[in-house]
């Protein structure tokens, strides 16, 4: 009897601790979202009040856009070819090989092009931004900027945000183009699909709206990658471990944001399309 009454308070304490831990997690999550929102707000404020210097912007555009081009082109090419390999036998069983171009192009225009370009950007650039800014935080370079009267958000975040926003549409178009070329190459030269019907069907299926659909979404992905990566770098824990963790978290959170935004924007744009063109 005495034993059971002694166990009851200890279970109650354990339950209390679990509720407190859960509360801590909730509070930290809300604080994190609030901090991130304030950070984004300050970035937008600086974006409209004073643009970065031409040198800083050109350097970011080169780092983020030009140097990402080869890896995005390579990934796009292979994804186009893989789509052809995966879909060919299914389509052939229905005698619809000439429709492969329609499927590949539509997938590349609307989904794979923008998501692939954004994922490569998050992996190559997002992690690097978080690591670079994290190192600057740990070595007090961000404090030094502030002490010299230069706002670190204007100086470090705005050029990177602008570069991601301006370069990701080009990277997306490159991923789409190379995917289309890769898919066409594999279907026509390896599977011997008739090129005339391949391109004729592909042209009918995917058009200007589909290209806009993908490129429009990519702008949101670019902004999310830049803001998340810069925020993670700015709020980096001390030491090499802190920088490594900031870099990893930046990629994971950017990737999750890309997926969530992709779903949300796809729903919004499809709804808009059917509202604007109900007979389509």
């Amino acid at each position, binding site marked *: 009897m005495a034993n059971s009454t002694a166990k009851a308070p200890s279970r109650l304490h354990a339950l209390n601790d679990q509720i407190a831990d859960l509360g801590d997690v909730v509070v930290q999550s809300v604080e994190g979202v609030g901090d991130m929102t304030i950070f984004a707000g300050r970035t937008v404020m600086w974006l409209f009040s004073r643009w970065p210097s031409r040198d800083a912007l050109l350097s970011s555009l080169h780092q983020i856009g030009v140097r990402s081009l080869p890896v995005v082109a390579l990934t796009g090419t292979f994804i186009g070819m893989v789509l052809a390999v995966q879909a060919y036998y299914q389509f052939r069983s229905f005698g619809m090989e000439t429709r492969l171009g329609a499927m590949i192009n539509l997938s590349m225009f609307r989904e794979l092009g923008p998501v692939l370009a954004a994922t490569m950007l998050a992996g190559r650039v997002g992690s690097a931004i978080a690591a670079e800014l994290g190192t600057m935080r740990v070595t*007090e370079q961000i*404090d*030094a900027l502030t*002490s010299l*009267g230069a706002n670190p958000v204007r100086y470090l975040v705005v050029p990177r945000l602008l570069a991601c926003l301006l370069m990701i549409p080009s990277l997306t178009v490159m991923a789409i183009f190379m995917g289309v070329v890769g898919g066409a190459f594999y279907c026509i030269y390896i599977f011997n699909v008739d090129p005339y019907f391949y391109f004729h069907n592909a042209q009918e299926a995917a058009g200007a709206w589909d290209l806009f659909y993908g490129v429009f979404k990519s702008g949101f992905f670019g902004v999310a990658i830049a803001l998340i990566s810069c925020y993670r770098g700015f709020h980096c824990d001390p030491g090499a471990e802190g920088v490594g963790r900031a870099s990893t978290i930046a990629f994971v959170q950017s990737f999750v944001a890309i997926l969530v935004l992709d779903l949300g924007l796809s729903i919004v744009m499809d709804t808009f399309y059917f509202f604007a063109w109900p007979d389509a």
Partner: protein
Amino acid sequence: MVDAAKTSMDAGRLIAAEGVSVRFGRQDVLRDVTIHARRGETLAVIGESGCGKTVLLKTLIRLITPSRGEVVFDGQPIQGLGEREMTRLRTRIGFVFQQAALFDSMSIADNVAFPLVEHRRLARGDAYDVAAERLAEVGLPTSVMVKKPAELSGGMRKRVGLARALAMEPELLLYDEPTTGLDPIMSAVINELIKSTRDNHDVTSIIVTHDMHSAMAVADRIVMLHPLSRLGADDSQLLFDGTPDEIKASADPRVNQFVRGEAGERIREMHGV
């Protein structure tokens, strides 16, 4: 009468921290700390590692916002200042960081010229001329201007940090551990630079250090902080405020141990005696 006396005393002060407390999460780092520096004075803030010296220094320039109390610079409380006013005020203050905190993506010339290009909007060539002058003041040749910070030794980086802090000809210079990690000769060079900078630029200096030799060599006045973890709830964190001669004669055993570098009590603590 009392007000007039206070006003005349305050008039000589360039910067003051009044009842400043800083808390990180659940940990108090500074509690009700009040210090000031008069114009032209060199103040050394000493104390054990972890007592909050660097936090205090960063609070003076609002790199850290205090949870209580205020910092007053030239008669103006800085807590309520907007971002633009604070930016203007920071151009009147130079900060020399412990590891120099040079921008490693820039050349030495760009590092030193940075505040001139940012605030005075000087053309790059003119800014480089001023940067060369500042580098010469800290004993560095113009040949270092094209180098990156990673190519310089620790002592040279600290001198570049001082040259960058001097670029805007500030009224107040804040030094965070200026001699830490340097050999005795380079430490002496830095101490001489601190003194010559004060004499040549008529600048007020606050130096955070745990190097007693350096504090004695450069300071007009010394204040000593103590870690909160070693104090009772009502004890003052400020153990000492006086001249270098007075600190040598201090009756407080904690001050004496620090000045003489005696580890007796700490070693007894380590062995649980």
